[in-house]
């Protein structure tokens, strides 16, 4: 999609609300596809960095620039090399993240289907205009797929104990944050980490290994792991 077409579809989009644009993807369908992303990324008004950086304004932004987000070395290198997120680079990244940034921490296999990618990009595109165009929707992030009692979230973990416990994680999850087939778990905000672990513990998230590992972690142990992995640099 060329810039002029993008402008065109935006005009149409503005006219027709979230209806399908004439060209390119359909942002409404893209919103569905985005569910795959929302475990880690927020988008929309008030979106903040979670496991991944927020995605407001991602189009035409140089890579690695979201304030306050600790990027992987690999992404920082790509950014230093001049990577800019535009339709082509985002499309390639979404298709196969590691073909663009081989050691990215983004634990996502990629979206093979071109139509899905077009729709997703159309959806992301709506949040890349001037702030006025960002709809008044709550930020979407399914890292909140599970609610954890505030007193559990408030537990301050002991990173030294977390370091010992982390040995159980690093048989599979790489301690340096690199990921290939098993997600990166370093530098997550502690809250996301705690919520994710409790979601496994209560078998709300479906993964037999993670459910088994989480099932015997106490609230304090989860907090300790969160504190440790958050601080890994």
């Amino acid at each position, binding site marked *: 999609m060329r810039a002029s077409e993008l402008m065109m579809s935006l005009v149409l989009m503005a006219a027709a609300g979230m209806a399908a644009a004439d060209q390119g993807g359909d942002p409404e369908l893209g919103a569905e596809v985005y569910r795959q992303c929302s475990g880690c990324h927020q988008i929309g008004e008030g979106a903040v960095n979670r496991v991944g950086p927020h995605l407001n304004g991602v189009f035409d932004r140089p890579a690695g620039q979201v304030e306050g987000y600790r990027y992987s070395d690999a992404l920082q290198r790509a950014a230093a090399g001049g990577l800019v997120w535009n339709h082509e680079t985002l499309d390639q990244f979404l298709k196969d993240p590691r073909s663009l940034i081989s050691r990215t921490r983004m634990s996502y296999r990629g979206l093979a289907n071109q139509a899905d990618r077009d729709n997703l990009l159309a959806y992301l595109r709506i949040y890349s205009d001037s702030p006025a165009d960002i709809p008044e929707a709550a930020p979407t992030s399914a890292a909140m797929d599970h609610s954890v009692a505030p007193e559990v979230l408030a537990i301050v973990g002991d990173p030294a104990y977390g370091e010992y416990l982390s040995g*159980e994680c690093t048989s599979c999850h790489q301690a340096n944050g690199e990921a290939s087939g098993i997600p990166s778990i370093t530098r997550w905000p502690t809250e996301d980490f705690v919520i994710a672990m409790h979601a496994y513990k209560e078998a709300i998230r479906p993964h037999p290994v993670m459910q088994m590992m989480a099932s015997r972690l106490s609230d304090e142990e989860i907090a300790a792991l969160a504190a440790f992995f958050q601080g890994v640099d």
Partner: protein
Amino acid sequence: MSLNRRTFLGTATATAAALAAPMVMAAGHGRPRVVVVGGGAGGATAARYIAKDSAGEIDVTLIEPSRSYYTCFFSNLYLGGFREMSSLGHSYGGLASEYGINVVHDWAVGVDRDAKTVALAGGGSVGYDRLILSPGIDFVDGAVEGWDLSTQNAMPHAYKAGSQTELLRAQILAMPQGGTFAMVAPPNPYRCPPGPYERVSMVAHTLREINPTAKILVADPKDKFSKQGLFEEGWAKHYGGMIEWIGSDFGGGNVSVDPAAITLSIDGEVTKVDVCNVIPAMKAGRIAELAGVTEGNWAPVHAADMSSRIDPNIHVLGDASAQGDMPKSGFSANSQAKVCANAVRGALTGSTVFPARFANTCWSLIDTDDGVKVGATYEATEEKIAKVDGFISETGESADVRAATYQESIGWYDGITSDMFG
């Protein structure tokens, strides 16, 4: 707190000086000394964790004859053509340069438990305050009639990865069309319970591509095996008719071989085969026996810290240990090593010792994108490492689930090898 590789050379001396006071156990010779024999899944992990977490407080020596460690894990995938041999090799350079471990490429040939020294094949000896043995397995003499180590070129075991695995693959590729690949499977307990059956799957995968009329014959002294339902489902689905498994009920345990003739006798019936992969019964790596810490074929240990039940200054990890419920796997050895490292560091420097906890997951590949897994968590009891909870892949899972499981195993491989070697 940082998980980054410590810049060891820069900080070691300073840290050692600063922490000189709490060195409780160094029997009058400066820094406490840990010697690790065997740089595999158990030994490399233990050496790395002790060096990393003690940040120079403990002097760590690793004795390992090989310059490169070739993982047995994923060596079946090499037989299936899914991995290059070079991708399974790992050097010890990082353990030496990043963690300050003294890596000695030699064989340990004896242990003097009174003097607390380990004798090396190349001459000389090294002293220890704590000795960690993780020598893996050796084969029980005379376990398969007609086979011994001198015949391993004719009938490879490929149960220690490297040249044996390459030899076995070369033999498979050279099989005549419609030929027979035979496997003599081992009795319990042995390293990697699903290993022989993952191997059968991977050999079938290769043969289906290049030699579709070939047959696979498995003589097994057991009447059932790990992940049997999953493997049999996969064999029927992907390799219909190619694989014949003969369990103990049908004489699979009554086996002898003739390596010169490449024949295999099962329950008195002699078959000429083209490749014969003999995986004999196993025992702890011989150095455990030489150290006098074995009872029968294995070295019994306390679950809480993997210390030998025979000598409290020796710890035995991984395949060589008799610990209880954990399968002999790389994952288990790695898990045990971290418990042991924490306990040894505590004993030698007074650092906090946290309670033992263990886990294992074993992935197996049946065919392209058809991965399965089995796993469990364990705890330490007085008597043994005891299973707490477990799971296994189900038969009839969707192709997506199986493909995701395979992807996960690739991630696990990268995870465990970086946990071993940094």
